[in-house]
């Protein structure tokens, strides 16, 4: 536009007039088209964000009384709550202990099953099926798998172990049992993204490596993995979202117990809101989850924009 202004003022003026005439009704049309979505987002994303921030700094002084400003009292309360601290630590262990193994398994599966033939498609389907069942349904099945003495694990593995642990009843073991379920459920999902990512590795890169006489490990390390970096970043973001947002299995299998050993952040929030009716603590807990998500967002905005073709 600057160029045309130099070329001739009149042309430029006519151009601006034409554009604004056309743009004004168009803009209104655009907002009208966005309105239904924005209304939904306003009611169930933006307003709740404000609400939860407000709730987190207010507290009811007496049961049934009006909530009054409480500063950071709710945050002090959750920080003083051993169950909350336990939930945060558990969530960190849960994140590290599920994301890393699931990604490694998913990548291995994708490498092994990259070639599409009848057998490999069947194998892919076997790994993908857990993705499609509800997490509560998976938990119902694992309830029996982890059952002491007569459950699947003890029935088949118990004979090789002198003292099989109480998979869900032992506070030192229960979180790891829950993690096993998560890995089982998600590996097939992440595998799909790695399969798609492998398609994008250019053949020339491998040709060159062959000519150079690179070993298969070298090819994996220097060609395949670098090309899969964007995919890995994307899958990591999804996996991080999952560890913050999915707690259905905790609800069915352990209810956060024994002695809070399987409590996760979102389940703690649920407990505060539904079981203790403590909206202030629930809100403060939610804001902790939200800040984790905000951090993930900030780190991964580039990844997401690439994935969704974010240039507007």
């Amino acid at each position, binding site marked *: 536009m600057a160029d045309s202004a130099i070329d001739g003022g009149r042309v430029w003026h006519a151009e601006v007039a034409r554009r604004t005439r056309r743009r004004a009704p168009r803009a209104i049309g*655009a*907002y009208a088209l*966005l309105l*239904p*979505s*924005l*209304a*939904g*987002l306003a*009611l*169930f*994303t933006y307003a709740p*964000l404000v*609400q*939860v921030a407000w709730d987190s700094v207010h507290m009811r002084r007496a049961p049934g009384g009006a909530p009054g400003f409480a500063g950071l009292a709710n945050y002090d309360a959750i920080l003083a709550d051993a169950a909350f601290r336990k939930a945060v630590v558990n969530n960190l262990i849960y994140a590290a202990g599920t994301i890393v193994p699931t990604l490694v398994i998913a990548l*291995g599966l994708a490498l*092994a099953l*990259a*070639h599409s033939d009848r057998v490999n498609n069947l*194998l892919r389907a076997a*790994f*993908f*099926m*857990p*993705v*499609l*069942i*509800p*997490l*509560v349904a998976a938990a*119902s*099945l*694992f309830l*029996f798998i982890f059952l002491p003495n*007569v459950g*699947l694990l003890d*029935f088949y593995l118990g004979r090789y172990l002198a003292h099989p642990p109480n998979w869900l009843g032992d506070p030192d073991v229960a979180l790891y049992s829950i993690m096993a379920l998560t890995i089982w459920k998600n590996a097939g999902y992440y595998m*799909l993204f790695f*399969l798609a990512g492998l*398609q994008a*590795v250019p053949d020339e890169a*491998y040709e060159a490596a062959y000519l150079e006489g690179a070993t298969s*490990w070298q090819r994996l390390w220097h060609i*395949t993995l670098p090309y899969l970096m964007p995919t890995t970043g*994307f899958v990591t973001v999804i996996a991080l*979202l999952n560890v913050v947002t*999915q*707690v*259905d299995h905790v*609800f069915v299998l352990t209810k956060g117990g024994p002695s809070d050993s399987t409590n996760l952040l979102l389940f703690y929030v*649920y407990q505060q*809101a539904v079981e203790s009716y403590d909206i202030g603590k629930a809100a403060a807990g*939610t804001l902790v*989850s*939200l800040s984790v*998500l905000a951090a993930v967002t900030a780190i991964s905005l580039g990844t997401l924009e690439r*994935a*969704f*073709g*974010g240039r507007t």
Partner: protein
Amino acid sequence: MPLRRRRALPLATRREVAPRIGLGLVQVAALLWLVPMAWMLVASVRPQSFAGPGMASLIPDVAPTLRNFMEAWEAADFPRYYLNTVIIVAGILAVQLLTITLAGYAFARLAFPGKRSLFYLFLLQLMLVPVVLIVPNLTMVARVGLYDTLAGVMAPYFASAFGTFLMRQTFAAIPRELEDAAQVDGASVLQRIRHIYVPLALPAFLAFAVVSVTAHWNEFLWPLMVINSPDKRPLTVGLAAFTRGQEGAQAWGVIAAGTLLVVAPLLLLFLLFQRRFINSFVTSGIK
């Protein structure tokens, strides 16, 4: 292996590390992965339904029975749960298709002030998935009078950032000339969307539908909070209550049968339309 045959293989897989050490391993892993569902199938038709030494066996029984299914069907109102889940899933999808089409078109084809900021406002929902906001969302649902209704379960999902982006990308790839021709003929914006963009974007709509239906068929925590009356429970909430009851009775065969009833529809669809499901999930990324 003759050279020509070898060339047909994607190079990523040819003599790569994982295939060489891995194919056998992967087959063993696949069997392991199938164990929970194999047990569900076998145990659901097992004559002995209570916990005993043989309950865990993965070897099918000689005389299968449907008694566990009958007991599950009587213990919980599965037809009602199915109906509720179908209403929720279909309701969410119907509204989503409308909102994402309109918003997707606006982002793909129109220029307007604030476009970039609005785009980021949408992006926010990809991260702040409604389930994290269960507590304030519940307050909102109660405020608009939707507590303990199926509409209350659906409401937070009516706008979908993921769907909007998917449609934006799909629409942007459709040649503008088609629309220009229709515009010359005097077609309105809505007519152009309806008759030009929507028919050409059907594969994307289908991919979105698969992901949306799967996500909401399987959702648990949010409907658990919104729904209070037992007759409004969706399948997942019904199954959790049912499992708790049967667990007390140690009726594992009945739990297996009930779980099978809940997971069967989606798994059957998947087995029938495998490729479609897999492609949809690859485009999804975020539900």
